[in-house]
């Protein structure tokens, strides 16, 4: 497969935000929209609702493309947060309180080294997830599909938070440094 990968996606989202580039949008859509739909169906949405919400999520991506900051999150992470919030709204009928934004927005010309580091660390996180024993990996997936309650997550039975945590710490130490 020679699909564009991060940071190719970050550049595509930049083109959507800056130039309203429909070709870039179609590219991002082809890769992510089926995954968003799969995510929503795994989360308990019926196919019609999942399709409807997926279109909403991808339309939100278009509208908010200028707010995407490639130094702070991969495109996959950013789309996940949009899809998760749509799910809470559509399936749970709840509001989702969000933290205050950081006082600064995305840089007009983000440092490409920073972008690359974040994308590489994100790839490694994906690898770490794939390499987990199946039982643990499935449990993490269930948590993110909204299939575990907060008390089930708190019980941590079998959730490899330790493994994930060390990977995550590594990945985000740089970000922590920048936010200080």
């Amino acid at each position, binding site marked *: 497969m020679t699909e564009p990968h991060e940071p190719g996606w970050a550049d595509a989202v930049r083109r959507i935000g800056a130039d309203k580039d429909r070709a870039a949008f179609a590219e991002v859509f082809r890769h*992510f929209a*089926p995954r968003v739909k799969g995510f929503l169906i795994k989360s308990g949405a019926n196919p019609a609702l999942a399709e409807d919400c997926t279109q909403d999520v*991808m339309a939100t991506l278009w509208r908010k493309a200028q707010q995407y900051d490639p130094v702070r*999150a991969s495109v996959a992470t950013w789309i996940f947060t949009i899809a998760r919030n749509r799910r809470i709204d559509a399936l749970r009928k*709840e509001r989702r309180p*969000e*933290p205050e934004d950081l006082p600064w927005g995305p840089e007009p010309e983000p440092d490409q080294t920073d972008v690359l580091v974040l994308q590489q660390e994100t790839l490694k996180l994906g690898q770490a997830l794939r390499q987990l024993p199946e039982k643990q990996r499935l449990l993490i997936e269930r948590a993110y599909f909204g299939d575990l309650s*907060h008390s089930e997550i708190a019980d941590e039975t079998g959730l490899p938070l330790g493994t994930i945590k060390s990977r995550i710490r590594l990945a*985000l130490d740089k*970000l922590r440094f920048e936010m200080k």
Partner: protein
Amino acid sequence: MKSMTEIKHHLTDALLMGYAAGALPEAFSLVVATHISLCDDCRVRASAYDALGGSVLDEAPGIALADDSLEATLARIVVKSPEAPVAMRQGILPGPLAGYVGGGPEAVKWRRIAGGVEQAILPTSRRASARLLKIPAGAAVPDHGHRGMELTLVLQGAFRDATDRFGPGDIEIADETLTHTPVAEVGADCICLAATDAPLRFSALLPRLAQPFFRI
């Protein structure tokens, strides 16, 4: 943010993961979002759990879209949907909380409950409840235990209980195993954001009788 470098009591990994996964009741999410607004450390940890969600999404098997899905989506982008305005910090109320209060500290509708303690219940879904509590300087919240989980985030002043001292930005996470009598420090009234997924359990008879009336 930078003024809150003294934060000692942070969110647990389970709460951060639950928040990232969208598993928390709205009232708990409000406490998490409010703490993250005050704590850069937990903001970083929270973004790590978002990143894990990104990996799960990227690994998810794709499901075939409707034939006209891309065209239908492009049709939606021309329709402007109103964006909910992001609430700004107002005094001791971080943005997410100011949004629920509908303004700054002066907009809070305090109701007296007992022993000079005042509360204001916030409008969240019913899976858990969230309230602001004002404990007069030096006063105690009646001895109580918990059936479920209770999160208490200090916004102003400080309180102590048997476990430790909790100052601005600190969060106390209590469950069935903790029965405590939080006492506000002298000096300033202690204002907290508290959320629980079950009614509190008071040890003394009187507060328990009063409980249904005060919704605590």
